[in-house]
């Protein structure tokens, strides 16, 4: 039986975890510990007051989003309320006013100001004899420390040598991006899973990664030699010579394989019998753009825009949005870029008024955008301005549509903003394509009616699967029921294809299913030749698509569509 830790005679340790991002690396370990808050008590220079005020606002925003994400994963009422209380603390108006006062009037650094203000509250609480006070103080300290951490992190330099293997208990998406700047060769975390945001980022940046190893941080010492096997989910600490030899040759094989894939990248995207297809990239950060080129993606099939808010930029700041979109378009010239409108989850990103029992069935995507018109208009103005500068290249994708009225309303907004822009003499792309995400089953069921209203469909199989099979994919009790290649999902996709062909509109898939090479064969067989995925997945998908004929793929699709159980589908795919 496999245990979490294997210990061999030669003194090497093998830790088993979850393979989160493929690839193998050998390197020196760098143990990353979340920096303990370091407080700078020296008075700051008056010229940096504004910077410190901004750091405070940024830190609050980052932590609010972190808490909201955490909240989405929690199911217990009590923990939800604790998180709610912490969100209230982060947004506390008195806290804001007092911290800013310390910075502005007393020239305190942002960290010192946060510490001072929190400590005065903690001091007051400590005078109470109430038993629950203890609990409150821990909550406060937690928020205080994270605020200081985040405020400090932005200016923090790490001492990571290129090629290092970073080992951490847990890391945030922001930290993955930070590490990638140091050219690390792999990532190992003790917590986290395959679908955690950090793992998604590691995959899309091509950094081999193993997560959920539980005890690496305890067992490893900085600068020990480490092998990370992101294909098998193994971490080998202090490997012996035999093991090293084995992995060196695996890396060589990998390089040969990569070389082959690189050759594939430059070859045309056509099936064995000459049907052309398009493989595009799903991205969220500009840091991923080099990969778009490296893996030969034909533009961006899904540009997520939520991070504009999460990262330092103000989402409300239209100029910064325009810069972001423009950078993506500049670096993908002349390929198309599909920008998905802000797809906030069912939590209260912008309003403090909503409390939802069931956020996945709640106020998210276009539902939220139509209520928060200013936000929608701001984003549309930015997108449409950029579209006018790069005519024919920008497409707009509307998330979480469930009824036709939503499409009509968004289109009306788009046309009216284009009108305003033209009046101001700003060029627009009058034939800009407007599409919708197909992720709510009602859209697939009514595909024909929707197809009459839009220029393209983009099928988001992750949510479509969740909603169709009524399975929360984060719920371990039912994770086996979460099957993207379920016959019911395939049938819904097929319905969309039929409607798209009838109304002569575009159809693409941007869900994870597109990155499974065999599933991709089936999608092309069904008539979807426009697939978007994490850039690193492109070569392997392309390789399989190039070595099969359209006819074979159609045959496969027919078989899958006529099966009735997941087992049958898996069987067909396994024996391919």
């Amino acid at each position: 039986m496999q245990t979490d830790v294997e210990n061999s005679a030669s003194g090497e340790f093998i830790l088993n975890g979850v393979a989160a991002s493929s690839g193998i690396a050998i390197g020196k370990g760098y143990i990353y510990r979340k920096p303990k808050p370091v407080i700078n008590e020296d008075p700051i220079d008056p010229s940096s007051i504004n910077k410190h005020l901004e750091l405070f606002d940024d830190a609050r925003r980052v932590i609010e989003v972190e808490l909201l994400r955490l909240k989405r994963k929690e199911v217990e009422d009590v923990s939800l309320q604790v998180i709610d209380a912490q969100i209230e603390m982060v947004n506390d108006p008195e806290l804001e006013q007092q911290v800013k006062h310390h910075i502005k009037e007393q020239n305190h650094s942002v960290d010192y100001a946060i510490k001072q203000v929190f400590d005065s509250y903690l001091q007051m609480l400590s005078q109470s004899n109430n038993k629950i006070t203890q609990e409150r103080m821990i909550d406060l300290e937690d928020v205080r420390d994270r605020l200081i951490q985040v405020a400090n992190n932005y200016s923090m330099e790490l001492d990571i040598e290129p090629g290092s293997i970073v080992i951490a208990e847990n890391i945030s998406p922001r930290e993955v991006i930070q590490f990638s700047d140091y050219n690390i060769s792999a990532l190992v975390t003790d917590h986290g899973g395959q679908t955690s945001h950090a793992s998604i980022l590691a995959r899309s940046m091509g950094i081999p990664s193993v997560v959920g190893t539980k005890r690496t941080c305890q067992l490893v010492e900085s600068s020990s030699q480490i092998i990370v096997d992101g294909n098998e989910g193994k971490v080998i600490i202090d490997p012996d010579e035999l093991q090293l030899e084995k992995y060196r040759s695996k890396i060589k094989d990998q390089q040969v394989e990569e070389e082959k894939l690189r050759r594939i990248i430059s070859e045309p995207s056509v099936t064995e019998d000459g049907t052309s297809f398009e493989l595009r990239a799903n991205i969220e950060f500009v840091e991923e753009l080099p990969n778009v080129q490296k893996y030969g993606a034909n533009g961006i099939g899904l540009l997520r825009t939520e991070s504009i808010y999460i990262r330092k930029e103000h989402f409300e700041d239209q100029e910064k949005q325009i810069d972001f979109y423009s950078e993506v378009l500049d670096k993908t010239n002349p390929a198309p870029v599909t920008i998905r409108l802000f797809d906030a989850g069912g939590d209260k990103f912008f309003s403090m008024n909503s409390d939802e029992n069931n956020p996945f069935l709640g106020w998210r995507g276009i539902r939220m955008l139509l209520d928060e018109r200013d936000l929608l208009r701001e984003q549309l103005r930015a997108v449409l301005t950029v579209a006018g500068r790069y005519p024919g290249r920008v497409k707009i994708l509307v998330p979480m549509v469930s009824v036709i009225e939503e499409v009509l309303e968004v289109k009306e907004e788009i046309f009216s903003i284009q009108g305003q822009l033209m009046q101001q003499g700003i060029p627009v792309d009058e034939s800009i394509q407007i599409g919708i995400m197909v992720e709510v089953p009602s859209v697939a069921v009514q595909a024909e009616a929707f197809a009459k209203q839009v220029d393209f469909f983009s099928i988001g199989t992750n949510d479509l699967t969740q909603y169709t099979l009524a399975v929360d994919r984060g719920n371990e009790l039912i994770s086996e029921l979460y099957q993207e290649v379920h016959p019911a999902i395939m049938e819904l996709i097929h319905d969309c294809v039929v409607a798209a062909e009838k109304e002569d509109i575009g159809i693409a898939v941007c869900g994870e299913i597109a990155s499974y090479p065999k599933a991709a064969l089936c999608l092309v067989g069904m008539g979807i030749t426009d697939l978007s995925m994490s850039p690193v997945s492109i070569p392997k998908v392309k390789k399989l698509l190039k070595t099969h004929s359209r006819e074979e793929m159609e045959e496969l699709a027919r078989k899958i569509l006529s099966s009735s159980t997941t087992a049958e589908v898996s069987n067909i795919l396994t024996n391919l």
Partner: protein
Amino acid sequence: MDTLGNNSDLGLSKIISNLMIREKVQIVNEAGLHARPAASLVKIASKYESDFFIHMHGYRVNGKSILGVMTLAAEKGVELELEVDGPDEEEAFKAITELIEDGFGEE
């Protein structure tokens, strides 16, 4: 002059008292006003435009500040004086007192 001055003072305080609500309310839930009830209180109060302050044992804290409300450490049986002032003070006061008197929905 004296009378006039007194009179105008009286008039002013009358106007002030007309312009805001000040009422007492008792904490009834077993655990008192700890973190989670404080969060619900602040969340409700923040929905309204009116300013909201809580007076207790000579302290006055901003009722829209969870940190302030928590430092009161108000236990069961404690009497709070609520001060609500603004265009929607009636509705705000009603919503806030209902929440407190309902024991924040806790046992």
